[in-house]
């Protein structure tokens, strides 16, 4: 069996930022991160805002230098222009020269990537069509475009030179549900074309759908890495989460006896009723027992729950 190519290899990556008036205080944004991304997979770097995702992306691209550790893309330094020729990047926000039109932007970046004029024109037209940007929009200055349209231009520029590796910082940011669905479809198609995709996003549910493997990051530290199925088996459909207060210990015990997972957090009690326990019966039982039901929500994705548990465990354990 032939070994798959490790496109991204990160070892003990650490980044400290200096803060304070004299720069004497250090804030650790990424803490000894080690991971590997294989050829042809969609890899998701997940975590809440401030987890260190964007810092990691900037370290991968060598927009910032690591305090310690190494990053290798295709076995080389990320600064190597040869690596850059195989790399497409979409920033967190569509930071693009706003005075240019989409066509002018693609032409300029095409020149930097070494495409001939005919290639630039052909690739730009095909990509703008692929990301669903009509010609009337492509000829307007970028400052006049909506956030969703800018995100499409951003994706088109990342793909312009047909890169083997795509690094996308929050590709779902600022998109409506339809836009997110389209981006998901494109990502899957680009993987089918043989590209490796590294994306960072705070939207765990989106990543769970499309990522082959994910890494969970919290306060710069890697909490877990693996396929969504390995990290958290799917939850049965129909399960609900009930938030309630004023529950007596006896009521909690009765709910547990009905197969519910009951967790008390100060005055609030979170009751996770599996599909087999019929959530609405549990709601009625809480009301009959004198408890106050605050909210009833369909249970979140299993990976989200896994992440929440991992964060709680990480915060409980000493640093």
């Amino acid at each position, binding site marked *: 069996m032939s070994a798959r190519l490790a496109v991204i290899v990160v070892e003990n990556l650490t980044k400290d930022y200096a803060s304070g008036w004299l720069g004497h205080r250090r804030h650790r944004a990424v803490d000894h991160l080690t991971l590997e991304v294989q050829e042809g997979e969609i890899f998701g770097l997940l975590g809440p805002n401030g987890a260190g995702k964007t810092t990691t992306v*900037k370290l991968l691209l060598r*927009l910032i230098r690591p305090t310690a550790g190494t990053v290798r893309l295709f*076995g080389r330094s990320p600064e190597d222009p040869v*690596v850059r020729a195989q790399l497409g990047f979409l*920033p967190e926000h569509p*930071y693009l*020269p706003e005075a240019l039109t989409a066509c002018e932007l693609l032409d300029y*970046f095409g020149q930097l990537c*070494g495409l001939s004029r005919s290639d630039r024109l052909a690739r730009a037209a095909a990509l703008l069509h692929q990301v669903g940007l009509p010609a009337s929009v492509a000829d307007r200055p970028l400052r006049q475009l909506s956030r969703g349209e800018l995100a499409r231009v951003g994706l088109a520029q990342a793909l312009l030179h047909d890169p083997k590796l795509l690094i996308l910082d929050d590709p779902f940011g600022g998109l409506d549900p339809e836009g997110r669905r389209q981006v998901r479809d494109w990502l899957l198609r680009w993987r089918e074309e043989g590209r490796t995709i590294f994306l960072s996003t705070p939207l765990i549910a989106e990543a769970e759908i499309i990522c082959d493997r994910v890494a969970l990051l919290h306060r710069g530290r890697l909490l877990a890495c693996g396929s969504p199925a390995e990290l958290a088996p799917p939850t049965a459909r129909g399960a609900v989460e009930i938030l309630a207060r004023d529950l007596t210990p006896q009521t909690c015990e009765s709910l547990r006896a009905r197969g519910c997972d009951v967790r008390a957090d100060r005055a609030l009690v979170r009751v996770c009723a599996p599909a087999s326990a019929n959530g609405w019966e549990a709601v009625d039982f809480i009301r009959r027992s004198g408890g106050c039901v605050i909210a009833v929500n369909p249970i979140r994705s299993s990976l989200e729950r896994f992440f929440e548990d991992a964060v709680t465990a990480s915060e409980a354990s000493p640093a």
Partner: protein
Amino acid sequence: MTAAHERVSAASEVMIVSSLTWARFSGVRRITAVALASSRELLRERILYILTGFALLLIGTALLLGELSVGQERRIVLDVGLGAIRVLGIAMAIVLGVRLLEREIERRTIYVLLTKPVRRWEVLLGKLLGGALLLFASVVVMTGGLTLTLTAMGRPWKEELPLLIPVVFLLWLQFLMAMALALLFSTFSTSALSMLSALGLVLIGHASREFLQWAEVVRSPLLALLCRALYYVLPNMQNLNLTAAVVHGREVVPSIIGMASAYVGLYLVVVFVLAAIVFHRREFR
């Protein structure tokens, strides 16, 4: 062979193909692409038109001043006209020099640009060349205005223009030095501080010979050494000012132009290398 070795050799094969693709596209073409994009970007700067327009207005006003001074019309027009080109050209060079990088960093468009297969020093050189191109165009427009003014007061342009060209060429070289210094400061400092620092150096550079004279008169050998060092480090703008020659109708010896060009070329290389080193190490948070 271990799995890790296999993976590395597979990576090398991919990169050999990529190297060939990248090498086919020369650095000159990448630098040209950045230069042209930077010129286009700077063409949208309102300050460029305001300063060029103001210079043309001053040159036009010189015609009125010339009318008031009997027998000195040409001298007054040339003094005021070349003075306006020099002052406003240096202001333009400093402002645009800072804006070359500042816009990209402020709007964070630098993120995407630096992830393209282009080296950081190529981006910097492209930007400097783009700015130089635009300054050249502005100098041509201002010189055209001055020539027209001289023609309006009855001076034949065929006689005046050959005298003007070496002078404005050296002025353009001054602008390039000012722009390069502004670009150097903008690689690590804020825009306001970069403009002030570059302006300060250019102003001192207009009196750099003073340092040589001070080196002769100070008693302390250390101070004398410092004065000499400053003379060589600061941009020598005085050697690039030939206004007096053209005012008095003297022809400029070509060797002066050659020496001045060589000096500016060397100075630009040193400033550019410093800027490239700082820019290469800069982090974009």
